[in-house]
């Protein structure tokens, strides 16, 4: 008995690592051979003109062929996959090209073998926790350069190129070595959220300054409602509030100081100090929803939906995520972070950016149809379909038909991003320096639980920045 248990003891603790390294070793090594074999075979390009290439025309610049088949794989996460089904139905109706649809969370599991075997789908929403990293696919020569699609005439206005109809800067995250190989399709805004109904019932005005915000929290507390809720188990969310305050107070320079690992990013930055003191004031005065520090995102957001708190931090996926929990008359609204006095950016400024990468594999069997599909994704009609089905915006400028009734939260993000105009900002340290991000989150978690004070928070965050700056790899990242 003892000796079998002994062997068990060796195996169990590293079960995951073993699985991974075995899988990597077995999949990656022969996979690479296959890939290079295919690439040097030179079969890829000649296939293209085969049975999937139809006649090109003004409405059909890639020559998508009627009667051919399109293989679509979509990440079925927070946004569901109904929007893709709606697109496919429309695609079939208009072009006579039917699609095989796969909605899944296991992108890697389902697609890695197909990429390795050289028969990938035609278009993929490569997202979620199990996405195949875009840079990995790119380095293996698996991705099509999307410039043909982006330079094609727009569906809505053929005089314009597709790329000129998009919100500026939203293509950047999909760039690898100067080429756009992934289309980050969804436009997300981050900030605070509230219930229009609750505001109406209580007679509150939308707070534009931090003092107004605190006043509402105070009033709410006196009526037994929490002021601010956050998804405490994931300190990522409270950092949305903290970092937005810093950026709006100190302007883009304060934000870039953090991304560029400035030795005065936190300690010695007035913006950072005032922002964290403002947040701490909420904690100290007891304006947090009771227990919110330990709640998961669903628990916390559901409580907020039950009017247990006035405000909550989140990105614009919130409405879709909470569809089932939101009362019909809740009237969800987005709120840009209220301003500290003497802020550099205006109240309307918001954190915003694109996510959810769609890619076309280089070896897609039906490339013309895939390119046409993507071109249509960037049409007003399909962008509106997406907004209706997934309750989120796309990177298409003014991409939602004004005649269409959106859900209130989504509608409020449309207005907010219009009001913001060019006043948008986005931190990059979270993408660049996961470890530093974690250290800052850990510090914020301690602050929210009153275990450390703002001064200590600044010190810990600065230490995280300084530590990251010592890593030679961090020299590669810089923003101006």
């Amino acid at each position, binding site marked *: *008995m*003892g000796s079998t*248990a*002994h062997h*068990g*003891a*060796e*195996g*169990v*603790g*590293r*079960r*995951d*690592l*073993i699985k*991974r*390294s*075995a899988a*990597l*070793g077995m999949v*990656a*090594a022969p996979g*690479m051979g296959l890939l290079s074999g295919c690439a040097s075979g030179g079969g890829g390009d000649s296939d293209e003109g085969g049975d999937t290439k139809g006649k090109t025309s003004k409405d059909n610049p890639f020559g998508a062929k009627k009667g051919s088949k399109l293989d679509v794989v979509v990440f079925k996460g927070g946004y569901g996959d109904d929007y893709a089904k709606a697109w496919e139905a429309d695609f079939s109706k208009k072009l006579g090209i039917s699609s095989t649809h796969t909605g899944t969370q296991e992108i890697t599991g389902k697609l890695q073998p197909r990429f390795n075997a050289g028969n990938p789908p035609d278009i993929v929403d490569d997202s979620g926790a199990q996405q195949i*990293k875009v*840079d*990995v696919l790119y*380095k*293996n020569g698996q991705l099509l350069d999307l410039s043909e699609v982006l330079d094609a005439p727009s569906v809505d206005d053929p005089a314009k190129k597709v790329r000129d109809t998009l919100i500026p800067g939203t293509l950047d995250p999909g760039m690898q070595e100067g080429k756009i190989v992934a289309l980050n399709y969804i436009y997300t805004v981050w900030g605070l959220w509230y219930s229009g109904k609750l505001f109406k019932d209580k007679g509150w005005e939308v707070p534009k300054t931090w003092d107004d915000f605190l006043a509402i929290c105070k009033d709410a507390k006196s009526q037994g409602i929490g002021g601010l809720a956050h998804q*405490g*188990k*994931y*300190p*990522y969310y409270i950092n949305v509030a903290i970092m937005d305050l810093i950026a709006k107070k100190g302007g883009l320079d304060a934000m870039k100081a953090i991304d560029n690992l400035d030795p005065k990013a936190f300690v010695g930055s007035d913006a950072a100090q005032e922002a964290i003191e403002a947040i701490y004031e909420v904690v100290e005065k*007891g304006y947090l*929803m*009771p*227990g*919110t*520090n*330990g*709640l*998961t995102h669903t*628990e916390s957001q559901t*409580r907020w939906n039950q009017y247990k708190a006035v405000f909550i931090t989140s990105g614009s996926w919130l409405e879709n995520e909470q569809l089932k929990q939101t009362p019909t008359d809740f009237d969800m609204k987005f709120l840009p972070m209220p301003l500290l006095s003497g802020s550099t950016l205006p109240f309307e400024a918001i954190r915003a950016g694109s996510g959810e990468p769609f890619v076309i594999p280089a070896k897609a069997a039906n490339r013309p149809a895939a390119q046409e599909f993507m071109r249509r994704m960037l049409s007003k009609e399909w962008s509106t379909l997406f907004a209706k089905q997934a309750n989120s915006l796309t990177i298409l400028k003014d991409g939602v038909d004004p005649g269409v009734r959106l859900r209130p939260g989504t509608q409020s993000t449309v207005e907010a991003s219009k009001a913001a105009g060019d006043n948008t900002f986005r931190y990059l340290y979270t993408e660049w320096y*996961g*470890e530093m*991000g*974690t250290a800052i*989150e*850990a*510090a914020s*978690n*301690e602050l929210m*639980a009153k*275990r450390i004070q703002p001064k200590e928070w600044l010190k810990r965050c600065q230490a995280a920045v300084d530590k990251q700056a010592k890593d030679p790899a961090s020299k590669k990242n810089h923003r101006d």
Partner: protein
Amino acid sequence: MRKGQYRFVAGFLFVPVALYLIFVIWPYIQTFGYSLTNWKGQSQTFDFVGLDNYKALVEDDVFLKAIWHNVFFLVFIPVITILLALFFAFMLNAGGRGRAGGVQGVAGSRLYKIVYFFPQVLSLAILAVLFNAVYRSDGGGLLNGFLIKLGLVDADSPVEWLNEPDMVLWALLLVVVWHGVGFYLVLFSAAMQSVPRDIYEAALIDGAGRGQSFFRITLPLLWDTVQTAWVYLGIVAMDMFVLVSSMTQNMGAYGGGPDHHSDVMSTVMMRNFLYYGKSGYACAMGVVMLLLTLVLSVVTLRATRRERIEF
């Protein structure tokens, strides 16, 4: 004939040994290889960095703290689980008195045995969901709701069980113990039932109380089983990945909070491997975990080695 016999045996051994070599030993070797590189886990390009990863590991506060958390579990999980299981098993099998003649469990012991076993049939994931509801940090949590009703806790400042540095490890420990006691109770019960009744009866006639018959008879005769339980619970204590990553405050990924106060080696390793992309470094952690587990196994087997009592 003899030669054929060997071939026969070898034929049976070949497949399992080959599988073991391919899926266990070879990954170990690979892990060690990767631990000497700056591999980032997303492609097969990396440089050899010698022992740099191991040098960094010695200065990694988070990982060093995580080792101590594993040690905490290693000490308390087996001790508490085994003591409780032994106590309950004894009560169920030999704790009852009353009727003249014979040794028996307390009344209703058959029912208890089944009830105690219930938690064991739950998977760890369900266990995590269940206890997240128990420990929930607002009035909706089982514990908080109860304490608020009793007036022991203020509804405006409920106890954040899993967000308290001093409480989080104990809270996790309780889950493991609750889950494990039933199984070891049944294990010990089975062992106890194989102890001949006449030994107990002889002790009874000589005037031994419950305590005496437990320490003088039951425990010595159960030593083999206890040892097995200890090793199994040691494995649980060295892992803890599922509970920590799905119950505690998120430190980037895989739980571990607040402020790394509940991080164990496996969560730190996975965070480095996938979330930070420091896969080579994570492999070095894996190698350290392997060594620690090996040492632990040897120590446990040595320390609990005793003469087996035949009965």
